[in-house]
């Protein structure tokens, strides 16, 4: 089993950042050195936190700012029903005792008390329900300290050199290698973006998980417009399905699943009292036809994180309680996996969909589950890496790494695993850091140490993602707390990749590979 103690120590000087991996080791250097190592260098962007004005969110209500105005009881009741559902209505009736008969006040007061009692009981079972929408997103997001991160979400396009960045001011920017235009997407409903994903097998469709709904943007790659109108966005919403914290497209591009920690699709009473059962609801969407099928299972109390295996056969659904499910997507049945310690914080799939790595809140290990089609499901999860706190001593003082995991990312070739470690906010030398493992699946699955990815001094990694189609190995994109987005390439030759000329680690050696690729399958005579 691999542990952090086997890792090569991080660079001694605090100014140095991780530039790339070549010849099996990570190369460190100054920030300015990292360039011209790839064909298309993805733009290293910088969004300073100060320049972004977060949306002023009327958290509870802006009602208090307005003059008191007495509507009729009927109007107020209707408004209360609309705003706060059944509890709001009951509250309104209870509070306007001079206008309604006494028995009504009394009975609604009783019902309200009963509701509150039940909801408090329910919330004691599922404490996350007491959180507000924003806090809930921050709690369950894969992004480290989501609420004050300048970059709230990041999504590489699965096929082409294009990515989308969601910023703190609720706008989304799209960068494309082929054009200088960066479209900015803004929409009235685009609030607190918690996740984004490009539709596979499509050039232009981006799904965005927002506070109250799902937005499906259709960004025409040929368009010259920098501000696509909100008519390009398709709004998918389902009563009770908010905030949406996680979305995932099926790899075949036909379905989209979305999840919310507080989905109450069963009752749909619009109550803030959360009078629901502990249901886990995943909404499965056929986006084009706007058809939505809820998949419900009792137990868990919502779904926080979804991840579709790259081969499309399985879907991981984590819940806010110590339980996660693995859905099989042929007939949509699920396996329950109760974890002992806490909820499943993050998970990722191997490229062939046979292995799931996950980590549990409150534990400092990575578990692996191996699925196979023939011998049924796995019986228990195996610990594959130990991430307990380790101290590296250096000239600048000790550096502490390790602890709980924020998110996991596995590169599409299945050779590198990046683990974003939370660190400790109080301690100055125990900051968040990304540990990168090499993975090997034969003869036995194991993780081998590769190194740490570190940014500029004082910058913590906030979120990370591998580019899905990097030619020469793997490319990890990291968004830092200072608003910078950098790309760390890992040059290696994959095990499964056919390669004629040894192992050329750097792209300027790889011209032969490309010649090989450009050979056509068909010859002109055949067609």
């Amino acid at each position: 089993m691999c542990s952090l103690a086997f890792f090569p120590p991080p660079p001694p000087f605090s100014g140095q950042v991780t530039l790339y991996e070549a010849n099996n080791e990570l190369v460190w250097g100054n920030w300015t050195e990292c360039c011209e190592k790839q064909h298309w260098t993805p733009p290293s962007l910088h969004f300073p936190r100060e320049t972004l004005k977060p949306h002023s969110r009327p958290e509870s209500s802006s009602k208090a700012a307005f003059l008191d105005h007495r509507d009729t009881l009927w109007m107020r009741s209707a408004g209360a029903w609309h705003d706060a559902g059944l509890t709001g209505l009951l509250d309104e009736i209870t509070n306007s005792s001079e206008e309604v008969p006494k028995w009504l006040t009394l009975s609604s007061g009783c019902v309200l008390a009963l509701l509150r009692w039940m909801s408090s009981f329910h919330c004691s079972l599922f404490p996350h329900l007491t959180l507000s929408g924003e806090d809930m997103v921050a709690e369950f997001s894969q992004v480290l300290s989501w609420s004050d991160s300048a970059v709230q979400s990041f999504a590489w396009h699965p096929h082409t050199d294009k990515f989308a960045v969601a910023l703190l001011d609720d706008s989304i920017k799209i960068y494309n290698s082929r054009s200088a235009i960066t479209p900015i997407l803004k929409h009235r409903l685009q609030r607190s973006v918690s996740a984004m994903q490009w539709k596979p097998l499509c050039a232009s469709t981006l799904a965005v998980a927002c506070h109250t709904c799902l937005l499906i943007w259709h960004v025409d790659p040929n368009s010259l417009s920098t501000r696509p109108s909100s008519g390009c966005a398709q709004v998918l919403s389902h009563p009770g399905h908010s905030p949406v914290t996680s979305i995932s497209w099926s790899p075949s591009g036909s379905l989209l699943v979305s999840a919310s920690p507080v989905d109450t699709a069963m009752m749909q009473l619009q109550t803030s009292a959360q009078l629901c059962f502990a249901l886990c609801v995943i909404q499965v969407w056929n986006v084009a036809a706007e058809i939505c099928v809820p998949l419900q299972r009792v137990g868990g109390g919502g779904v926080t994180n979804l991840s579709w295996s790259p081969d499309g056969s399985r879907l991981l659904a984590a819940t806010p309680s110590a339980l996660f499910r693995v859905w099989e997507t042929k007939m949509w049945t699920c396996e329950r996996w109760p974890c002992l310690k806490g909820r499943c914080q993050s998970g990722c799939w191997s490229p062939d969909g046979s292995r799931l790595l996950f980590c549990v809140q409150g534990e400092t290990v990575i578990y692996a589950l191996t699925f196979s089609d023939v011998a049924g499901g796995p019986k228990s999860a195996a610990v594959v890496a130990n991430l307990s706190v380790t101290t590296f001593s250096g000239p600048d003082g000790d550096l502490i790494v390790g602890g709980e995991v924020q998110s996991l990312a596995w590169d599409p070739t299945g050779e590198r695993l990046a683990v974003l470690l939370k660190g400790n906010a109080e301690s100055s030398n125990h900051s968040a850091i990304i540990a990168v493992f090499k993975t090997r699946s034969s003869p036995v699955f194991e993780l081998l140490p590769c190194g740490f990815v570190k940014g500029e001094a004082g910058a913590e990694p906030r979120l990370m993602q591998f580019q899905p189609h990097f030619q020469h190995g793997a490319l990890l994109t990291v968004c830092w707390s200072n608003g910078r987005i950098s790309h760390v390439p890992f040059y290696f030759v994959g095990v499964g990749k056919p390669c004629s000329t040894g192992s050329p680690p750097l792209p300027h050696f790889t011209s032969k590979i490309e010649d090989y690729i450009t050979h056509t399958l068909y010859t002109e005579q055949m067609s």
Partner: protein
Amino acid sequence: MFSFNQSCWFIRKVVRWRAVASIGWSVVLLPPITSLLVLFIRFSVFHPTHWLSGCLGLLTEASTLFSMFLLCAAVILLAFFNLQYYTVVPSIPCSRVALLAEVLHPRQCVHSLVHCAVGMLVMWCVCVMAGGRYHALHSPCTHGDSGSVDVCLNEYHMFMLLAGAFMGYSHSLMGVVQNVHYVSFHIIQQYKYMRFKGSVWWLLKCSAVQSLYSVRNYAILYFLFGHIPRTWISNTLNLHIDSSVRSLDSFGGLCDVSLFYQLWISGTFLLLTWYLTVLLFRIYVTEPYRFPVQSSFAEDAEECLPKVLTEKNALVMKFLALQDLALLSQHSPSRRQEVFSLSQPGGHPHNWNAINKECLSLLSELTQRLIAHHDAVASNGRAKPPSDSRSSSSCSVTSGTEDLSQSPFHSALSRTPGSVFGSAVSGVNLPLTAPFTPDLTSPFSSPAFRPLFSSQLAQKPWLGSVQSPHVTRRNPKLWSTSTDSQTNGSPLPSPEPAPKPAGERKPSFLSQWLQNRKEQVKGFLAKRVLVVYLFNKLPEASSQALFADSQAHIWALEGLSHLVSASYSEDKYGVVQTTLPSILSSMLSLQEAVDRHFKLPHASSKPLKTSCSLGDSTYKTLRFALRAALKTAIYRITTTFREHLHAVSVPAEQQKRLQQFLEYKE
């Protein structure tokens, strides 16, 4: 009740048993639902123990068991009766008058009548079980002045019975408007129990809400016209009207909360049992069926996938076969191997060729249909001004699925302006409409109704935009009722009106003159508000109608593209390679046609969401689903083959388009 003795093996062997199973389950579920009904309808707040013991006692009474038996019989009867109305391609009326014609169609009238009768029967059973003041149609009453005991009419009972009839009728009506009998296929595969469990809550909510609306409408109706049936019944049955009890069509009589509560509960029960049958049937019939790809025995050859795909008579089988194709191409490598395999002896890829051919013909048929529609419709979204006598209110329908000669209504309406003949006689699409002629001239040889599940969709090429505002699409039906429908209670269609084929054949001076008259009448009528209201094309409807059967195309696209992309690594003999150019060019030309279609007004406008109804509105968004599936299918092929596609020979324009796809610029 309906013809299971169809020639198609699939209907006999599979669909029949699925239908029987679904009906069986709805009968099994009936007693628990009835018990719940008894509990709810006799609910009393103030005597809970009395209420419970009373209900338990009632459930074991002979009268309750008898009415339970009657209810079961009613459910079975109705379920079997409804089987012939199910369809996998929805009927989409293009104008209000078409909708009206559909409602007034004799077939539909029979449907309504049966539902009215069964609704009354169910309500009678409910009254028996509810007891109390609802128990019987007559009740003893005393005359105020003489003191003699007499038999009076129990208006509560009558109120409930009529409510049953009303709800039956409105259910049948909503069935037409909302396409309740349209069977749509689920977007994901689930086990039947899970699907049922997932829909139960929605079903309950739906029936409760619908029942509430029905109760409201019924109360209004009864308030206005309630005295008519009351007098009529009391006169015919020689019952007195109790003057001491306030009559229910008065304001005071209707102010009765418990009456409305009980009416609402029993209405919910009524609708719930019906919806349940529909839901169970949908779940059972859309369950994927696994067709063998090839069989070693010659007698099973017609049950194999390549053969079944080409089937035209049982549309449900074609749909299930396409679904199976889409599933096998995605999930099962071993069955894909069978598709790519060569015949023994001979070494021909018969399986692949047959599948490929059928899918491509489906796609090209849709392409033709779209092109013809686009040609017919000018850029303003209306029909072209007549070079022929097509009226502006006309709307394109797939003539492949329409029967002009179905009802007296249709033929009567057909003589009104803007009829189908104008365009058929001297249409610009004369070559296109030509194949239509045999259909007109041989009305008797063709089945009276497009039989359930038998479709001419694939059989006929796109026949051009035969125009009529009045002709609704007579949807293909689940079961053939070809000639048996005449014996089993369905109305007979009227024979073809004589002038029709005549006018068709020789455009003589007389017909020319008639044509001019028609023009004048039409010009006159076009100015009338009501006529315009009735005949104006519903927005989107023509677009929806064009894509009504697109689920088949979506599966064909998915199946083909998955098979092609799997062939990159799995196809040992290269059988797919030879057909790749034709697949690509057919997809690209469909893409072009779809793109052009979506530039039409109303084509890309989204339909409003229907709130709570059993009617499946998925057909309204099928065109968007098709567009997305098409693009995904092309991308699936281009991402698999990438630059190798440069070597595939497709026409130059399509090559350009393909390049766009390769660069992810679509």
